[in-house]
């Protein structure tokens, strides 16, 4: 039996708000709700913050939690989109090269930035890592897409196979950069590859937030067509969907938002797998419900995971990718086993 839509969405929203507040409150420093309110009040009145706690709240905790929530939403929606496009529940957003390419781009900055022209670095400023990651993600996705393209058509199977190859190349590139990097930088690559929110800033929150809103809205508008695509490309064509147009727009939207998120927080594996799977069990496969629900649940689960990353080894911090992988990898194996007999669906 499926839960009532209104109740389900309200419950999810309330839970999300509670988790966000908890995530802000708990950490190396504990922040009381009264301090949160005071900080917001001072900020509105443009007064300076009264205590260190208010500063921690405004400058560290709040942007971190918000960036985490936005990233969770992006990764979850991306999972829904890619799985719908490939008609396969075992597909991860990073599968078509986006994540590996973005990681490679970022690792180049970490290892080779001493050799880059200072003018170039000043020019890009805080955008240096994101721009390289975005270029890498876009480049890798474009390569996969154009190599898999045959006779003006993009079939799913070649897309997946070429995606695997490009992923391997991207990860080798990351490995190479790690190898030639000196010690402290090498460590930051490792950290980057497992994801972290420790460097979250307001700039990142706004940048990622705007990209997320635009991309998710575009995807949501296509939700009905994505539903029809569940029947396969030929049937979708019979039902009046311009399949190639739909696939191209979804791929572009997906690449943009995943690259931007990845460039700020690193590769966070399996979020795009966990959230859609759980939601399909709960509310079914209708993308008109699945996309908004993924926004809420993706934000909720990644915020929880980040809380775990901060608290489990406190005062030290764990890369968040370890937590999502511990939960996600077994699920991935389970899904692979469950669907291995459905290979002809590809």
């Amino acid at each position, binding site marked *: 039996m499926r839960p009532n839509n209104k109740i389900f969405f309200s419950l999810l929203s309330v839970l999300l708000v509670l988790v966000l507040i908890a995530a802000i409150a708990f950490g190396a420093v504990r922040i009381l709700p009264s301090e949160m309110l005071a900080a917001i009040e001072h900020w509105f009145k443009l007064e300076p913050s009264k205590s260190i706690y208010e500063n921690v709240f405004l400058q560290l905790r709040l942007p971190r939690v918000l960036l985490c929530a936005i990233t969770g939403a992006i990764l979850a929606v991306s999972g829904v989109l890619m*799985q719908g496009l490939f*008609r*396969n*529940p075992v597909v991860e957003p990073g599968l078509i090269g986006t994540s590996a390419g973005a990681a490679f781009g970022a690792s180049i900055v970490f290892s080779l930035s001493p050799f880059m022209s200072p003018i170039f670095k000043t020019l890009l400023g805080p955008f240096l890592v994101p721009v390289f990651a975005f270029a890498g993600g876009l480049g890798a996705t474009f390569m996969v897409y154009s190599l898999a393209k045959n006779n003006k058509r993009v079939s799913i199977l070649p897309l997946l196979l070429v995606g695997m190859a490009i992923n391997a190349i991207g990860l080798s590139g990351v490995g190479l950069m790690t190898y030639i990097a000196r010690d402290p930088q090498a460590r930051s690559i490792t950290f980057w590859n497992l994801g972290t929110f420790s460097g979250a800033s307001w700039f990142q929150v706004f940048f990622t937030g705007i990209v997320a809103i635009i991309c998710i809205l575009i995807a949501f508008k296509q*939700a*009905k*067509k994505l*539903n*029809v695509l*569940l*029947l*396969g490309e*030929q*049937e979708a*064509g*019979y*039902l*009046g*969907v*311009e399949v190639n147009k739909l696939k191209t727009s979804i791929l572009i939207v997906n690449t943009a938002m995943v690259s931007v998120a990845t460039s700020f927080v690193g590769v966070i594996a399996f979020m795009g797998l966990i959230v859609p799977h759980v939601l*399909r*069990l709960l509310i*079914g*496969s*209708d993308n*008109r419900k699945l996309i908004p629900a993924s926004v809420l649940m993706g934000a909720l689960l990644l915020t929880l995971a980040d809380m775990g990353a901060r608290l489990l080894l406190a005062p030290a911090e764990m890369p968040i990718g370890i937590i999502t992988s511990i939960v996600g990898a077994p699920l991935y194996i389970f899904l692979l086993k469950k*669907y291995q007999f*459905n290979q*002809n*669906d590809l």
Partner: protein
Amino acid sequence: MLAAKQLKYNIGNKRILDNISVNFLPGTCNLIIGPNGSGKSTLIKLLSGALENFEGEVNYDGVNLKTFNKQTLASCRAVLSQQTELSFPMLVEEVVLLGRNPHFEFNPNKKDIAIVHEVISLLDLNDFIKRNYQSLSGGEKQRVHYARVLAQIWDRPNRAHRYLFLDEPLNNLDIYYQQLFLSIAVKLLNETTTLIGVVHDINIALRYADQLFFLKDGALIENGVPEKIVNAILLKNVFNIETQVIVHPSTGKPVVIF
């Protein structure tokens, strides 16, 4: 009228369809029959607009198929395929509702829902409405898709013409549902509806077809009213088997025995 002129289709250097010109009239049941690899399904795909890189012309009431807007075409032309699989859990009513896709913008309206329930009843699927599609048997799944396809062209604004294609849809069905599928299709027929189908069972084809089309090696060997064209020589020529053609005692239609 659906008119095809000099259709040619190649895959690589292999000619799949060779110079086929044929007309399908509204109100008639047109069934295509032929051995494996004779181009039957390809012909359906060309006529229904699934394949576009062919030579020749397909016209729906004088309008070239290639000039159609995809959504406009989808609101008057539906195709029931051989097999359609879903990788995700969906309720039967959700799958049938997908057939209304060309008719609503984002959310279905009351009319769409009413049509969905009508076709679900027609195909005897009332007990399955809230079932997960993936848990159904092959034959039940095919009934769900038939309901979906019928929902797609159920209503005809301004009595516009509609076209129903059946692309070997009977393979998973028992005799009862094979007959039900075709008798439902035949009941829909009227002056604005054209039915074009591919079936494998020659006797099913003889029973329901107004016009039969024999394909072999991508060419149209013979077509016409079954009683007039079907005989042992033709069947030997097309299928390379020895048969006898007798007359059905009650319907008076030809029956092939092997």
